[in-house]
């Protein structure tokens, strides 16, 4: 059984290798090969899952060391896998959603010339992400961590001929670097503290290290999580990452990769539990981000960017829950899984809408689409109900639990966190209703197709379908092909039922508890009250959105809006902030350093060179070409040699 874990990672890696090195011969079958290998990985995951279910809760974890990677003295880095319930959950989510999105991409990328390469990158992403979650030490996790970063970079910039996509890819890469440095520092700290970075010894001995060390490690891990999961203050890349093809947004930037930060925090729970300050930082980041993302989501007219804001906000919920400690871990992961379903479904729905609407992304130019795209409408609608927490659907169960856990934190902190989470739920209801109404209801506000070189245009949708309409024509919305709708339907099923299944008999809780541990918090408010309050804010949010967008026509050109709206449209000025603080500051710093380099360093270097050169010129004159002076030098040398030897004896 253990050997299957390696195959799990190898299958998509093999696919990436074949597809990226295979050449044009594979153009015709490459996409199916990629999808097949993703499915193989999923099947292996399912086999492992069945095997795991067959065993007792306490010894479900599988460990296997494949080979010693870097054995140097006391430094041991192994390639080893650790598959427990937490990893298993991720494996199923990654391979399951991954396979569906591969399938969807077959249709979505049908007209792209570089489809084979696209599938190669997708497979590469799957392999790296699986490595990240099944690694049994932090160094190997780091390899996967960098691998998904690379895949994300390649896929965001997949349409590299668009300057905006190339820039967005660079931005994502650079911002992620900041987080990755955090992870590498955390690993180094672990090595100096524990002498190893394997999960078992590090997490097992965490309570023996001092709190200061643990806090430092925890904060560095949080920095890493912030980068990968687009949390404040490293959130600025996610909105731009929507330049990538929509399936990428669904898989990497909604369902899986961006949740790696939550995985990291949950996995390193023992470290955070020993460092309350770091935990406080985690919940603060989560709470701030969940409001931040929600507010940004309210103001965006670009459907994908609105969803990106929403992703940020939902991951904020997960980070918040993960920061709560054992009372929140299980619900963080549960929300992560349900979010994986409904957010991927929403993105795929958005892609389907864009597919039908001549790659238009501006929701102000949608309207009344429910009649033209029934399947998309229904699946998107179910995803919508799930994310706002409509009773009975996935999001209801998972989000409700997080809000409860936030209150259960206790004290003032609990009230603040709980209140924030509730407020976030209201805003979620508001912005998602806004998206829903602007896209599917109301009057048609369709506009002629934008020219393909508009920055936000998705080239994949350019030449779709019958190809009867080009730039300047009104769109003819239509339902997408089967290969796209089937994944949407399957994801919608997940969005509807996953939450209920998980909560029934506390199945999910019992499943994860052996790994993450769980304790019931001491909540000042009863569960029923929380549910009631959630329902209330839900209704308020929906009603507000309805009042604003449902009851009166939506203007095609966006109104100027309040100061907050304008700021939110600019992502709450995050880029401006970064520019002023980091870019300007960095420029000053480099100028200063450059001046120092020029005067001090170059001066020293050139000075040395001149000195040595001068010395060389002077010593060279001793070499005058006369055998007699050479002989004198030898004689003198011999005399000195003898004298020195005698002198050594004398002293």
């Amino acid at each position, binding site marked *: 059984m253990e050997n299957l874990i390696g195959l799990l990672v190898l299958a998509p890696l093999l696919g990436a290798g074949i597809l990226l090195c295979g050449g044009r011969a594979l153009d015709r079958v490459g996409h199916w090969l990629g999808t097949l290998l993703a499915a193989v990985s999923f099947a292996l995951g399912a086999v492992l899952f069945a095997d795991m279910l067959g065993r007792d809760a306490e010894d479900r974890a599988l460990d296997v060391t494949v080979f010693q990677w870097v054995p140097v003295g006391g430094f041991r880095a192994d390639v080893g896998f650790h598959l427990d319930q937490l990893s298993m959950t991720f494996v199923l989510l990654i391979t399951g959603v991954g396979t569906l999105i591969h399938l969807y991409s077959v249709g979505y990328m049908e007209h792209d010339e570089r489809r084979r390469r696209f599938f190669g990158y997708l497979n590469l992403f799957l392999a790296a992400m699986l490595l990240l979650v099944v690694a049994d030490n932090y160094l190997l996790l780091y390899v996967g961590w960098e691998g998904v970063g690379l895949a994300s970079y390649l896929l965001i910039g997949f349409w590299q001929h668009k300057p905006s996509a190339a820039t967005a890819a660079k931005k994502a890469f650079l911002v992620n670097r900041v987080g990755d440095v955090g992870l590498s520092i955390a690993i180094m700290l672990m090595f100096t503290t524990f002498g190893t970075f394997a999960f078992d010894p590090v997490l097992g001995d965490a309570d023996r290290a001092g709190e200061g060390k643990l806090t430092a490690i925890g904060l560095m891990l949080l920095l890493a999580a912030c980068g990968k999961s687009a949390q404040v203050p490293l959130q600025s890349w996610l909105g731009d990452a929507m330049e990538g093809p929509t399936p990428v947004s669904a898989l990497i930037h909604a369902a899986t990769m961006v949740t790696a930060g939550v995985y990291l925090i949950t996995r390193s729970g023992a470290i955070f539990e020993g460092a309350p300050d770091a935990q406080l930082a985690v919940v603060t980041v989560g709470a701030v981000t969940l409001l931040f993302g929600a507010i940004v989501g309210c103001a965006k007219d670009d459907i994908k960017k609105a969803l990106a804001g929403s992703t940020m906000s939902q991951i904020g919920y997960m980070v918040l829950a993960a920061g709560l400690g054992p009372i929140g871990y299980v619900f963080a992961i549960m929300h992560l899984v349900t979010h994986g379903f409904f957010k991927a479904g929403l993105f795929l729905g958005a892609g389907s809408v864009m597919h039908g609407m001549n790659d238009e992304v501006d929701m102000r130019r949608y309207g009344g689409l429910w009649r033209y795209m029934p399947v998309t409408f229904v699946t998107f609608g179910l995803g919508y109900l799930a994310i706002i927490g409509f009773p009975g659907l996935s999001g209801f169960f998972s989000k409700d639990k997080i809000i409860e856990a936030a209150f259960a934190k206790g004290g003032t902190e609990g009230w603040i966190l709980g209140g924030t989470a509730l407020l976030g739920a209201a805003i979620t209801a508001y912005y998602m209703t806004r998206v829903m109404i602007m896209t599917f209801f109301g009057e048609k506000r369709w506009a002629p197709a934008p020219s393909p070189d508009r920055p936000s245009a998705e080239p994949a949708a350019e030449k779709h379908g019958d190809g009867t309409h080009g730039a300047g024509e009104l769109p003819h919305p239509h339902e997408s092909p089967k290969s796209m709708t089937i994944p949407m339907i399957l994801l919608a099923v997940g969005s509807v039922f996953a939450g209920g299944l998980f909560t029934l008999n506390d199945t999910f809780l019992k499943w994860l508890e052996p790994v993450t541990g769980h304790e019931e918090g001491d909540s000042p408010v009863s569960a029923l009250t929380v549910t009631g309050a959630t329902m209330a804010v839900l209704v308020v949010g929906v009603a507000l959105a309805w009042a604003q967008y449902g009851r009166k026509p939506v203007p095609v050109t966006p109104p100027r809006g309040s100061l907050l709206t304008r700021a939110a449209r600019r992502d709450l000025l995050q880029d401006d902030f970064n520019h002023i603080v980091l870019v300007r500051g960095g420029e000053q710093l480099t100028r200063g350093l450059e001046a120092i380099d020029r005067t001090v360093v170059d001066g020293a270097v050139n000075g040395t060179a001149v000195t040595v050169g001068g*010395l*060389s010129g002077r*010593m060279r004159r001793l070499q005058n070409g006369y*055998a007699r002076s*050479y002989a004198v030098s030898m004689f003198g040398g011999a005399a000195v040699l*003898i004298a020195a030897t005698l002198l*050594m*004896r004398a002293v």
Partner: protein
Amino acid sequence: MSRAAAVHSLWTDSSVSAVLADAPRKIPAPHIEYAQLSPVLIVLGAAVVAVLAEAFLPRRSRHLAQVAITVVGLAAAFAAVVALAAKGYATGKAHVAAMGAVAVDGPALFLQGTILLVALVAALGFAERRLDPAAHGRPVDSFAAQGAAVPGGDAEQEAVKAGWTTSEVFPLLLFAVAGMLVFPAADDLLTLFVALEVFSLPLYVLCALARRKRLLSQEAAVKYFLLGAFSSAILLFGVALLYGYAGTVTYSGIADVVNGTVRTVSPALASSTGNDALLLIGGAMVLMGLLFKVGAAPFHMWTPDVYQGAPTPVTGFMAAATKVAAFGALLRLLYVVLPGLRWDWRPVMWGVAILTMLVGAIVAITQTDVKRLLAYSSIAHAGFILAGVIAISPDGVSSVLFYLAAYSFVTLGAFAVVTLVRDAGGEATQLSKWAGLGRRSPLVAAVFAVFLLAFAGIPLTSGFAGKFAVFKAAAASGGAPLVIVGVVSSAIAAFFYVRVIVLMFFNEPRADGPTVAVPSPLTSVAIGVGVVVTLVLGVAPQYFLDLAGDAGVFVR
């Protein structure tokens, strides 16, 4: 008076009484283990055959015959070395052969193998006849038409017109190699001196035989001869003093006296050992003779002039093989004869090593001639190797052995490349003429760049592995300051190596720049071997380090 009597007894008493006691007996015939000396004997035999060939074969067929004799002789000798090593003479069966004159042990066999391989590759350069344009319809090599003819005189012109070549270089090469084979294996001071002369004299002659720039070549030979004779004299004086001190010339005998482990101390010995000055002065003088051969400062002055003047194939051979042989002898002297004195000579050798590294690296910076540049580089490398020699540890021996093997092939290759870059006056050794060579002949420039990087000790070349091993050994035996100076001078040295690379690749070629001659397979093989050894020893040095480590024990 009593002292004189004691000395008298030393010379006469024991021997006279021995002779008197065994009066009827004849001098016993020496017991010689011919098989174990076979490498040397094969080379000497080949040299004699080559002399006979020179005497009896018609001039036309000499070149081919000489090349064949040389290559076969050297290859056979190498095979003999390998066979001896395979029989275990490098490790378990190591002993002193030929009545205590020659050691057959790991270091000796390793160095002999290295010298033979170096000589084999160098012989290819000696045999190269395609670089110079044919004179009067006959191919010519790097050597003078007739060595005895006055440069520019009638005799020379006639010789050139007649198409003569100095095919005597091959027997000279073989005699020199034979001397070099004995030099690191010599186990008594007289054998050491004889070996020194046997390999030095042919080298003096070889240096004088350049076809082009003959005056420079002859000047180099005279300087080399004068200074070499001077240093030989000092060495011989040192030998005499050591004999006066210990009453014996064998290494083990002197070592016993130095360590005070002599079984029977005669009164004469007791009185001579009472005066350490003999030992110290004698030891220093012998050391000086060896340091002259390795080109260590302040005995290095001959190196640039001789390297520049000598025919380039000879320079390559000298730079590689002489260094191997001389360092081998130095190692044996320091590790076998004088370890008991290491507190006396180590600080002095530190000084020599530091001075050598710095002088070599610093003076090289302002050189404008490729061959002189390589000469100073070889001085700096002598300093690096000395740092390993001084370590007096098994690691020191093995690192020096490895360094010598690695360095000699880099040197051979580098000088072989120098022979390729030519203009109307023969080899274009002026550095300024090499500008832009990388644009005209990227392959040749790239190969030279590999050798320069190896000299500079850049990783993935043999130079790095060797330097690392030597500095590691030096640091492990408490030579940290030595290592610091070594690294600093490596940095200085890197400057001029890289400057040549920059010159070749990033400067505009000159209109009147040199051309790169297309060599015959001989030189191509020599350069190719150099590149391969450089890269293999750089990428996978461990096997060879182990080999050198296994061969690192001296026999006494």
